C-alpha cells in the first residue's frame, strides 16, 4: 500500500477527473439535445399526423338506430310495440382471440348455434370497429352473470336496444308479420348507410312491405372511447328520425271475432270495405306467435311450426289457393249480362244432368232431378249448375277468363302485403302453357261452376266480392290506411284511388244482387240473416278437393267424410242497398259452404255491426222488404246437404297442378 500511495498523484488525478467530468457533461448535453431533437421531430414536424391519429384513436362515429314505427289498428289499438331489452355486442377489433372468447363466453352467457352462425355471418360483413350483436334479448340472469365476468371480455358489452313486441301475438301474425334479426342476405339487400346500428328488419307481412316507412333514418353520435372501446362521453349527436307509425284498416274486434269463429279449424277469412278497399279483418287459421321470431326462433320451436300438418306459417288468406266452386257464379252471371249473353229473364231447364253433344259423360246438378226451370236470380239462389254450365259455354272460355281477370282472379289483387299468390284462372293460354294441350269444351263447362283448373285465394275472392258489392268499382285491397310521423302528429291517410268500374250496364248489378240476397233468404245461406238489421247478400261454394272416380252418386252424407273431401266457401256483403263490408271465408275442411263457412261470415258481420255501435235485432224479423222479389215461388225444400255440389266429369275435373 505504501508503495502504491507513493506513486499516486492526487493533484494530477483531480485534474484528470475534472477533464473527464467536463467531457462527460458535454457528452451528456449532446445526448440530451439528441433526445430533445427527437421530441422536436415528433411534436413539431409530425405533430399534425399524430393529432389525427390521436383523434382517430379516441373519436368513433356510432350509429343510433331509429326507433321503428309503431303499428295500430284503425281505432288506435297498439298492435306492434317497441320494448326495451338488452343484447350482447362485440367490437371485433378489441377482441384479441375471437374463437377463444366465444368459447369462454359460452360458459357465462349460453349461446346456441343460431346465435353463433348469425354472429359469424355478420362479423364478415362489418368493419372491425363496428359492434356486432352476439346474443339478443338477454335475460336478467345473463346480464348479471356477464357483468360479473365483464373484465374477462374486452370488447364485449351489454347494450340496451328496443325489441319488437306483438301484444296480440297469433291474432295478427299473418297480417303484421314480424321483424327478424338482420342476416347476411339482408345485408346484401339493404342500404348499409340506412341500416347502420339496426339489428332487425321486417321479414313478413306489413313489417316487410312497409319496411321503408317503419324503419326511419338513423342518427349518429361521435363518441370518445378509451382503449377498450368503452364510451367515455358523447361529443356530438345527430338524433335519428324514428320510423312512421302505421294505422291499419284492420279492426281488432272484427279480427278477433273472425279468428274465434274458426274455432281452430284451418281456413281463412278476409273482410274488405267495398267503398275504399280497406281490409277490415284478415285471418288465417292456424296462426303462430310472431314474438318467437323477433330475436331468433329456437330450433325446436321452428321445427314444431314447420312440421305441423296444419301449416300455421302458411298465410292462407294470401297464399292458400283453393278451387272457388259456386262462389264464382254471381260473377259469371254478371259477365253474362254484361256481355249480353243472358237477359235476367232468360230461363234454363235444370233436369239434374247437363250433357254436351257427342259425349256420353254428363255434368250434374246438385239435386237429383234438378231445379226445374230457373231464371238468373233463381239460378244464383239455388246455385243451379246447369244454368251456369250453359252460360259458361255460351260465353266461351275466352270471354269467361277475360271477364274474371277483371276481378283479379288469376292475378294479383295488389294488396299491400308481400307474397300473395295469383291462383289459377282457367284459360286457353294458361292450359297451353302448363299442359301443352288444347282447350276442351268440357273444361269450359266446369269452369262455369268454379272447378276445372280454378284456384283462388281468399283475398282474391274477398277483393272480387268487394268489387261486386261496390257496384263494380274495384279498389286495391289495403291493410294500411294511414301513416303518422309521430304519436302527436296527425294521421296522414294513404291514397287508394279506385279502378275503372267493371259494370257498364246499370241494371245488371241489381239482378245479381237480388240473386245473392235470395241465397240468404231462401237459398243455400238460409238463416244467415236472422236477427241482422241489414240485408245480407251472399253466395256459398263447396268445392271438391278430388276428382270424382265413378259416375255413381256419392250417398255418404257423413259430415266428417264430406269435410275431408270439400272446401267450404262463403262470400257475403252487407248492407245490400249500400254495401260497406264484403267478406270471403274458406274453411279447408268444411262439408258445406253455406252450413259451415256461412256462420263464420255471419260472425264477422256481427262483429262489424257491434263495432259500429249497433246491435242485433232481439227477435227474428220478417224477411226484409227489399229481399228476393224474384223468389215469389216458395224455395224448394232442398236439403242443405245438397247445396251447390258440383258434378264434374272424371276426365276433366280436379286437374289442379
Amino acid at each position, binding site marked *: *500500500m505504501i508503495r*502504491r*500511495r507513493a*506513486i*499516486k498523484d*492526487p493533484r494530477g*488525478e*483531480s485534474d*484528470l*477527473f*475534472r477533464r*473527464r*467530468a*467536463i467531457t*462527460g*457533461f458535454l457528452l*451528456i*448535453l449532446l*445526448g*440530451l439535445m439528441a*433526445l*430533445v431533437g*427527437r*421530441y*422536436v421531430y*415528433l*411534436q*413539431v414536424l*409530425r*405533430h399534425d*399526423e*399524430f*393529432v389525427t*391519429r*390521436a383523434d382517430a*384513436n*379516441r373519436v368513433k362515429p356510432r350509429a343510433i338506430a331509429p326507433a321503428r314505427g309503431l303499428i295500430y289498428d284503425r281505432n288506435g289499438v297498439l298492435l306492434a310495440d317497441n320494448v326495451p331489452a338488452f343484447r350482447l355486442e362485440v367490437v371485433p377489433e378489441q377482441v*384479441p382471440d375471437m374463437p377463444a372468447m366465444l368459447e369462454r363466453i359460452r360458459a357465462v352467457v349460453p349461446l346456441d348455434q343460431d346465435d353463433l352462425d348469425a354472429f359469424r355471418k355478420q362479423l364478415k360483413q362489418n368493419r372491425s370497429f363496428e359492434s356486432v350483436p352476439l346474443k339478443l334479448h338477454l335475460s336478467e340472469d345473463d346480464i348479471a352473470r356477464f357483468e360479473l365476468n365483464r373484465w374477462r371480455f374486452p370488447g364485449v358489452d351489454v347494450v340496451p336496444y328496443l325489441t319488437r313486441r306483438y301484444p296480440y301475438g297469433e291474432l295478427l301474425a299473418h297480417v303484421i308479420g314480424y321483424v327478424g334479426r338482420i342476416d347476411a342476405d339482408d345485408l346484401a339487400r339493404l342500404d348499409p348507410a340506412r341500416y347502420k346500428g339496426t339489428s332487425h328488419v321486417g321479414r313478413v307481412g306489413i313489417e316487410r312491405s312497409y319496411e321503408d316507412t317503419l324503419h326511419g333514418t338513423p342518427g349518429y353520435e361521435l363518441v*370518445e*372511447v*378509451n*382503449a*377498450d372501446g368503452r364510451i*367515455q362521453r358523447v361529443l356530438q349527436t345527430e338524433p335519428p328520425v324514428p320510423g312512421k307509425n302505421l294505422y291499419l284498416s284492420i279492426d281488432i274486434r272484427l279480427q278477433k271475432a273472425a279468428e274465434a269463429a274458426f274455432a281452430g279449424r284451418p281456413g281463412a277469412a278476409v273482410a274488405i270495405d267495398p267503398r275504399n278497399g280497406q281490409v277490415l279483418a284478415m285471418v288465417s287459421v292456424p296462426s303462430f306467435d310472431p314474438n318467437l321470431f323477433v330475436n331468433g326462433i329456437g330450433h325446436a320451436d321452428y321445427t314444431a311450426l314447420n312440421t305441423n300438418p296444419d301449416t300455421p306459417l302458411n298465410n292462407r288468406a294470401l297464399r292458400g289457393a283453393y278451387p272457388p266452386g259456386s262462389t264464382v257464379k254471381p260473377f259469371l252471371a254478371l259477365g253474362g249480362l254484361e256481355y249480353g249473353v243472358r237477359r235476367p229473364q232468360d230461363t234454363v231447364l235444370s233436369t239434374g244432368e247437363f250433357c254436351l253433344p257427342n259425349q256420353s259423360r254428363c255434368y250434374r246438378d246438385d239435386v237429383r232431378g234438378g231445379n226445374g226451370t230457373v231464371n238468373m236470380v233463381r239460378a244464383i239462389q239455388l246455385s243451379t249448375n246447369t244454368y251456369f254450365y250453359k252460360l259458361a259455354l255460351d260465353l266461351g272460355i275466352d270471354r269467361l277468363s277475360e271477364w274474371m281477370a277483371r276481378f283479379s282472379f288469376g292475378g294479383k289483387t295488389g294488396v299491400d302485403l308481400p307474397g300473395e299468390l295469383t291462383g289459377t284462372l282457367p284459360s286457353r293460354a294458361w292450359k297451353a302453357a302448363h299442359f301443352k294441350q288444347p282447350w276442351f269444351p268440357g273444361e269450359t263447362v266446369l269452369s262455369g261452376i268454379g272447378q276445372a283448373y280454378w284456384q283462388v285465394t281468399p283475398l282474391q275472392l274477398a277483393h272480387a266480392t268487394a268489387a261486386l258489392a261496390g257496384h263494380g268499382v274495384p279498389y286495391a285491397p289495403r291493410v294500411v290506411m294511414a301513416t303518422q310521423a309521430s304519436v302527436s302528429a296527425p294521421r296522414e291517410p294513404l291514397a287508394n284511388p279506385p279502378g275503372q268500374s267493371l259494370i257498364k250496364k246499370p241494371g245488371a248489378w241489381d239482378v245479381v244482387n237480388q240473386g245473392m240476397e235470395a241465397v240468404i233468404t231462401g237459398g243455400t245461406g238460409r238463416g244467415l240473416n236472422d236477427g241482422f238489421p241489414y240485408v245480407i247478400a251472399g253466395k256459398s261454394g263447396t268445392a271438391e278437393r278430388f276428382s270424382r272416380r265413378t259416375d255413381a252418386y256419392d250417398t255418404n252424407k257423413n259430415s266428417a267424410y264430406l269435410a275431408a273431401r270439400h272446401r267450404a266457401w262463403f262470400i257475403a256483403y252487407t248492407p245490400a242497398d249500400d254495401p260497406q263490408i264484403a267478406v270471403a271465408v274458406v274453411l279447408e275442411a268444411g262439408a258445406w259452404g253455406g252450413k259451415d263457412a256461412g256462420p263464420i261470415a255471419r260472425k264477422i258481420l256481427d262483429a262489424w255491426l257491434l263495432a259500429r255501435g249497433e246491435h242485433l235485432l232481439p227477435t227474428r224479423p220478417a224477411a226484409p222488404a227489399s229481399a228476393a222479389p224474384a223468389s215469389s215461388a216458395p224455395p224448394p225444400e232442398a236439403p242443405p246437404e245438397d247445396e251447390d255440389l258440383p258434378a264434374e266429369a272424371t276426365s276433366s275435373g280436379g286437374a289442379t297442378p
Partner: protein
Amino acid sequence: MIDTLQTRLQRLLRRIVTRPRLDLPLLGGLFLLGLAGLVTLYSAGGGNFSLVGNQAARFVMGTVLMLLLSRIPPSVLRGWTPWLYAASVALLLALTVMGEVRSGARRWLDLGVMSFQPSELLKLTMPMMVAWYLHPRQLPPSWKDIVAVGALIAVPAGLIARQPDLGTAVLVIAAGAFALFLSGMRWWKIGALLGAVAALVPVGWHFLHQYQRDRVMTLLDPESDPLGNGWHIIQSQIAVGSGGVFGKGWQHGTQSRLDFLPEHTTDFIFAVFSEEFGLVGVIAIVALYAFIIGRSLWIAMEARDTYSRLLAGAIAMSFFVYVFVNGGMVAGMLPVVGVPMPLVSYGGTSAVSLLTGFGVLMSIHANRKVHD
C-alpha cells in the same frame, strides 16, 4: 453526553444552518423535479390523489434516507463499501433461489413486511465498489485494473440480466462504466473496449429472451405489430406527437386518460407529460435534469478524494442514463426496457434508491475540498 433529545435536535438544526451539509441548488432542483412528477402523476392517474399520496410518501422516505446518508462521511462509506457490495450480490444470488416471480421475471425478494428488488441496491453499491477499487490505485487504470473492474461489474449485471431485467442491468453496467470512464481510462482503451463490445453484440443477441428480441425488432418497425409489441411504441409516440409545442394542457391528454397509453403512470409517464405540456415542457424538464446532472458533476469535481469523486461522478452520469433511456423509449427511439423516468415515474423503489444516491452526493458535498 447525556443530552436531551431537544438539545440534540437544536444542535442538528443549528449545524444544518451554520454549516450546510446539503447543497441547496441540487436540493432545489430535485424538489422541482419531484413536484413536476407529482403534478404529472395526478393527471396520469386520472385525478387519483391516493396515487399522488403514495408517491409523496416515498419522496418523504427517500428524503429522510438522503438526510441520513448526508450525515455519513464518505470515508465511512468507503469502509463499508466491500461489505455492501458483497451483501447486494449475495441477495441477487439468493433471488435466483427464492425470489418471487412477478409477470415472468424473478426480481422481487419478499421480506415479509415489504418486497423489494435487490437489483436496485446495485445501482448504488456498484459505483461505490468500482470507486472503492480504483481509489487506492494509480490512475489512469491499467488493463489489469480495467479487467478487475469489468469482473466486478459483470457478475451482478449478469445476474440481473438473467432475471430478466435488461433495464436495470443497463443502469448497473452504466454506473460502473462511468466510474471507470471518470477515473481517466485512456481513450484508446475505451475505444478498444467499445469495439470489443460491439463485436460481442451478435453473441449477446443470442442470449436475449425472445420478448427482449421482439422489443428490439418492434422498435425498428413498430407498425409491424400494432396491437402487440408495437402498441406501446405507437401509442406513446402518438401521445408525444399530438402534444405539439404547447401541449394539450394539464389533465387534457386524451391518450393517457382514455387508456390508450399503457403504463402511463410508471414507465410511460413522460409520454403523458409530453402530451400535456408539449415541447416547451419537455425542454424545461430536460433542462432541469441537465442542471441536476451538471450540479452533481460539479460536486464530484469539488470532492476531496478519488473515491468520492468517482462515486459522485458515476451517480451523476447514471442519472443521465435514466433520462436518456426512458425519454428515448417514450419517443420511440430506444427499445422498451423497464427504466423509469427518475423522480417522475410512479414507483417506490426507484424513487427511494435515487434519493439515497443523492444523499451520498450531499455527504460528499459536505466533505468537499477546502479551498485555500
